């Protein structure tokens, strides 16, 4: 057995591997070691075979344990677990497929809905256009009627104005003829012909209007 001897001198640490039977080791008694083996009674298990020689009891227990474990795993444990895993994976796959189908169906319905909305919008646009056309024609008819009424009223007003103007002109001509007749009678002492005076006044006023 070799023993490591550690010597501290000042700050230096010296380690020596010595044999208990060697000359150097004689001054060191291995019984003084503080070493405690892993087992409290290490010698009870005996020296046994070398570390690279298998012990039959370890071989038998190890082999037996493994064979039982492997057989249980092969026959019962793994198939049971794998079956459960496969069932869950299948369930998940079915769920995925159902979700995909539902998504495709929803997309189809959305497309149908969008097509219906587009058709409704087109119909609505047509209705609106027709309404606008109807409204426009009615508005135009109303405007035309109003214009006709305005035109008729204006013509009537113009006729009234012409009549009033003609009446006023006749009254003015009569008044002027009277004045001219009176003036001519006062100047000449003879009363002029009323028709001639009226014609002269009318000609003069007409000439003035035209000028």
């Amino acid at each position: 057995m070799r023993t490591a001897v550690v010597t501290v001198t000042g700050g230096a640490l010296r380690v020596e591997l010595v044999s208990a039977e060697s000359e150097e080791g004689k001054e060191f008694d291995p019984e003084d070691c503080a070493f405690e083996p892993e087992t409290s009674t290490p010698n009870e298990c005996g020296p046994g075979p070398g570390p690279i020689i298998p012990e039959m009891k370890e071989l038998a227990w190890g082999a037996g344990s493994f064979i039982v474990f492997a057989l249980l795993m092969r026959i019962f444990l793994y198939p049971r677990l794998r079956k459960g895993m496969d069932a869950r994976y299948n369930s998940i796959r079915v769920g995925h497929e159902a979700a995909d189908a539902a998504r495709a169906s929803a997309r189809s319905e959305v497309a149908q809905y969008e097509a219906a909305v587009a058709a409704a919008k087109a119909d609505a646009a047509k209705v609106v256009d027709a309404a606008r056309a109807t409204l426009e024609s009615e508005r135009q008819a109303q405007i035309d009627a109003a214009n006709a009424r305005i035109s008729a009223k204006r013509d009537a007003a113009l006729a009234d104005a012409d009549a009033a103007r003609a009446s006023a002109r006749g009254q003015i001509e009569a008044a002027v003829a009277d004045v001219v007749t009176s003036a001519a009678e006062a100047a000449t002492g003879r009363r002029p012909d009323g028709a001639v005076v009226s014609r002269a006044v009318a000609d003069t006023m007409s000439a003035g209007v035209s000028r």
Partner: protein
Amino acid sequence: MIALEFPPINEILRWKDLFPSFNKIALIAVAAALIGTIVFLLAGSKDPMKAPKGVRNLAETIVEFIENGIVMQTMGRDGLGWTPFLMSIFMFIYLCNVPGIIPFLQMPATARIAIPMFLSLLVWVVFIGTGFKHQGIGYLKSSLFPPGVPKALYILVTPIEFISTFLVRPFSLTVRLFANMLAGHILLVTFALLSEALFQAKGNPGLIPVGVLPLFMLIFLTGFEVLVAFLQAYIFTILTAVYIGGAAHPEH
């Protein structure tokens, strides 16, 4: 002066029997099989149609890890039938590795050679049997006389292929798992002993703070062993899948 005695290798690897012919390694192996069985029993008892959580989530994660991370990568869809076997190997090895860092157990069952050797021999039998089942006697031909090699080279190639395929594979599987776990265990013991010796250095109080350094290393290595436990289980399992896949489909 303090002295650190490293115990003989068997003192940190061998355990007295809990009862006749049943020691801590056997206890860990049985516990690994029981825990794996209980996990899958509990997982199987949960309603599979609900979103998995807890133990069922753990079991399904393991199944998918083996199927997608190992079988599909090495054997393809045809290899899915090997999932229970590969899952058994992975879980058993992992659950045998992890006790190396569990307080009071603190011993990976795979740091003893018996279990790695049994599993390797089992894998050896399985992949050779698979080869003969799928290819018949042609398995020997495809293994020992790889196509595309000039015939003159078969003098060299055939013995090499025989040794590497039929002799070295179980040996390398055994040693890889056993040696890694043993090395990790010895490292943990070493740093634990060193920390303890430094913390208990009588007459040298200046050494006590130095004990923190191996303690930190011990904590780091304990975390590292968590990774190693998983990694060794994964490596053993994926190599098993590669060997079986290669025997079943030599063209791959």
